């Protein structure tokens, strides 16, 4: 849960900041501002590279996930026999495993974020749109959940229900929607009070049309920023679980699983930890830079 | 009386002139921003006499606040001031922080517009006020407290004893502004600068606070600078008025002359905007057009785009501030207003 809560303050601030921006042409401005942010654009490129490698790297390498090379155990990174990232204690090729792990980690990051997104947006917009008692009740539930040690629940969940990757999705997603719901609710409430929405009501537009035309466009900005900050958070939680042996299970692998195996072999094969660890760190860096870049692009005055 | 005052540009005040408290010469302020340099204040000069009240009038953004923040050494970190400001003959512009600390609050005090954000929210009013005396007069707790209570009563804060222990958010806007005034007066400064002290208040409270300043101006030797965008504030209070536009003084005159015989089209425009008893509020006009862009001031008169009397010369040549008649300065190419 630490990983879940650590970023909340920053995320919330980012959201509220991004939320101040509305309007069509502003999107073009925001795009232009984002593109002029070198660090953010660089991060996008690096992430794209990692994603492309996650898809194609196993094709580039002469080795596969299933190969065990008993004669090449714990070989350090080398250019010679195609074990560019070395091999692990079972003689498996780390290059393939690292990018296979990337595939799993990134997928989990995106999927769990999607779960959190759906729950959070639904919950927050319903609360914000209806307001009053409904809002009060729904947000009270969020408050209570906020105060709970939710990662401990995930651990219980995956240990007693079996270490299943789908459970990991659902578990993390079910925990990470809280902040999202708060942001969406706040945005919905504030949009609802704007004059143009009152005007739309007055001319008899239906709730659905109002939501589509006025509420959704206002929420999109903050949600996008939050999503870019939520993906690394969920990747981190997955790694945390996998490190404890509770997440992704062999023969599948993720960065967390690899790091865990690397930690166990830290004395004999430090690269087993350093390589996936570095990729994980770079990915987290990039998502954070992109998130910051998007926030700044969407809210230039907030700087 | 006003006619005997030293006038900038007419005769430089001599240091021996005992009545002169502050001489400001050619004060210029610019800000460096990512988009280039902003000239907020361009070559302003004026003198302040003991007990005199000088009004500074102009639209928002005309450089009123930055002029005096520069004098107090309170510009934002991207701001730079040049020129000369003398307090009792001593140069105080761009001096060391140590020297500034000795002057601020002691000889030069300021009341800011926004009393809500201007007082430290997590500190009791009493502490905030008494620390001024501790700092400048070296008073102990008890003595400072007595003096503060006295001052709070002077600015008509009821139940001063109780208020002393309260926090800013527990005060109404008007009361907070009184606290700000009390804080500024604690050391009986030579110059009190009031930067739009009534703008954030509602009309009745505005009148009360203005009465407070009026009393001050009449009964003390403190020179008062009243910054405002509202000529109405100036009318009953000030001896002289300086009208600013785009970071420059466009007219400087005794208050009566300014009201009855303005010499600058901008001043006339401001006067036309004043609500008056003999006029329907519907007739209220605002000067049409936008204040000038400080990043790109035009080569000619900054008011030209909005001036109903502008003629060929106005866009080419900047009018300088010159004497229209003794004691009355204006910066306009027109000899007489039509």
């Amino acid at each position, binding site marked *: *849960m*630490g*990983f879940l*809560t*650590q*970023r*909340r*303050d*920053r995320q919330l601030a980012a959201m509220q900041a991004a939320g101040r921006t509305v309007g069509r042409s502003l999107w073009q401005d925001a795009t232009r501002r984002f593109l002029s942010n070198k660090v953010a654009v660089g991060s996008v490129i690096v992430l794209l590279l990692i994603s492309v490698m996650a898809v194609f790297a196993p094709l580039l390498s002469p080795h596969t996930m299933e190969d065990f090379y008993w004669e090449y155990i714990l070989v350090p990174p080398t250019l010679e026999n195609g074990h560019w990232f070395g091999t692990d204690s079972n003689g498996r090729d780390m290059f393939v495993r690292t990018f296979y792990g990337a595939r799993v980690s990134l997928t989990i990051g995106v999927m769990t974020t999607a779960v959190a997104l759906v729950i959070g947006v639904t919950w927050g917009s319903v609360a914000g749109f209806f307001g009053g008692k409904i809002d009060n009740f729904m947000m009270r539930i969020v408050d*209570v959940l906020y*105060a*709970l*040690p939710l*990662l*401990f*629940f995930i*651990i*219980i*969940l995956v*240990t*007693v229900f079996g270490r299943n990757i789908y459970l990991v999705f659902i578990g993390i997603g079910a925990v990470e929607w809280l902040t999202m719901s708060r942001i969406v609710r706040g945005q919905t409430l504030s949009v609802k009070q704007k004059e143009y929405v009152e005007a739309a009501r007055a001319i008899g537009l239906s709730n659905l049309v109002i939501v589509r035309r006025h509420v959704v466009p206002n929420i999109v900005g903050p949600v996008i920023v939050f999503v870019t900050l939520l993906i690394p958070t969920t990747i*981190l939680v997955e790694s*945390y679980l996998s490190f*404890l042996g509770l997440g992704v299970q062999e023969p599948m692998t993720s960065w967390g699983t690899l790091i865990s195996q*690397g*930690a166990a072999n*830290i004395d004999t094969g*430090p690269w087993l*930890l350093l390589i996936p*660890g570095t990729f*994980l*760190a*770079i990915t*987290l*860096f990039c998502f*954070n830079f992109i998130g910051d870049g998007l926030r700044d692009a969407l809210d230039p005055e907030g700087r | 009386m006003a006619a005997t005052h030293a006038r900038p540009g007419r005769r430089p005040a001599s240091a021996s002139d005992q009545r002169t408290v502050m001489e400001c010469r050619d004060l210029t302020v610019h800000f460096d921003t990512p988009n280039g340099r902003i000239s907020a204040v361009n070559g302003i000069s004026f003198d302040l006499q003991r007990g005199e009240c000088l009004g500074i009038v102009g639209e928002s953004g005309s450089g009123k606040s930055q002029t005096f923040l520069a004098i*107090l050494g*309170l510009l934002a970190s991207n701001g730079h001031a040049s020129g000369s400001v003398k307090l009792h003959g001593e140069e105080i512009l761009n001096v060391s*922080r*140590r020297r*500034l*600390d*000795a*002057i*601020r*609050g002691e000889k030069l*005090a300021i009341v*800011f517009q926004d009393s809500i*954000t*201007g*007082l*430290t*929210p*997590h*500190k009791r009013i009493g502490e905030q006020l008494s*620390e*001024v005396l501790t*700092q400048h007069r070296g008073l102990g707790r008890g003595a400072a407290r007595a003096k503060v209570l006295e001052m709070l009563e002077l600015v008509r804060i009821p139940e001063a004893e109780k208020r002393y222990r309260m*926090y800013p*958010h527990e005060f109404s806007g008007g009361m907070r502004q009184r606290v700000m005034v009390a804080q500024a007066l604690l050391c009986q400064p030579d110059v009190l600068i009031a930067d739009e002290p009534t703008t954030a208040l509602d009309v009745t409270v505005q009148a009360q606070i203005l009465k407070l300043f009026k009393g001050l101006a009449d009964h003390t030797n403190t020179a008062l600078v009243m910054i405002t965008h509202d000529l109405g504030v100036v009318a009953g209070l000030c001896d002289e008025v300086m009208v600013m536009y785009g970071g420059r003084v466009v007219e400087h005159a005794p208050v009566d002359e300014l009201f009855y015989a303005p010499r600058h089209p901008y001043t006339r425009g401001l006067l036309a905007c004043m609500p008056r008893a003999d006029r329907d509020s519907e007739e209220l006009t605002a000067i049409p057009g936008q204040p000038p862009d400080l990043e790109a001031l035009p080569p000619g008169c900054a008011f030209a785009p909005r001036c109903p009397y502008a003629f060929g010369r106005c866009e080419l040549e900047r009018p300088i501030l010159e004497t229209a008649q003794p004691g009355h300065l204006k910066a306009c190419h027109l000899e007489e207003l039509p």
Partner: protein
Amino acid sequence: MFSFVSRRLAVALPTLLVVIAGSFFLMRAAPGGPFDADAQLEPEVIENLRAAYDLDKPVTEQFMLYMARLLRGDFGPSITYADYTVTELLAIGLPVSVKLGLTAIVVALLFGCLMGIISALNRNRWIDYVTMSIAMTGFAVPAFVVAPVLTLVFGLYLKLLPISGWNDGALQNMVLPVIALALPQIAILSRLTRGSMLEVMRQNYIRTARAKGLPEYKVVAGHALKAVSLPLVSYLGPAIAGIMTGSVIIEQIFGLPGMGRYFIQGALNRDYPLVMGTVIVYATAIILLNLLADVIYGYLDPRVRRE
């Protein structure tokens, strides 16, 4: 202030109840039980064992029994560590985790605030960039990567510090776990402090304080610091939660006999009483420390106190 605290407590108790009920039913909702792994046991033996731990009764009745015992302060016997009660295990684990966690929090606050203030006061100079780069790194490199690297460098290469074990909390055994645990929090706290400091120094009341003729150190100490610390105090709750979850993994890596290890062991072996015991202690700690953070906040900000 009193009503403020009692109102918070009124929310805290139901929250705790939700935690207890949630974890209790969550564990029992899954198929299987604690004795599944012991395939060599006779079915009758398993039945007896289940009866001994009340597992043969309906779930709601088990819950009632558990709550009744809990109210008497009894966490029940552990299933995995058959000779111990959960209370005894907690008595071993809790002091370790508390010592580790508190040290980490104090270290994090100390370094985080210091780095943040230095950064803010030297805004956009090289020292600001260096500190913030360190902070950014601490942000993106998780504790479970940092910890093994630390053991590699300081334990295995330099041979300066032990790489595992508790040794009754001896200083040299504490150093690496505390660093690994505090690092992510230092990263966040320093960024938070820097931002807060910059924000506060922009406020009008800071200008007022300067206009009164106060020297800068009095302006900062007297008028800025309290406001600067407010977001830090709000972050205290999440920071504590972060340290707690972090410590689960750090205890695992460094082989420390803390609560986290018992929690993971308990969960893996479906040791119901042990998991419940650890979760209750964690939840209580989080709730109480959050309450403490609220009280400190109220003390610092008079506007909250009066509400």
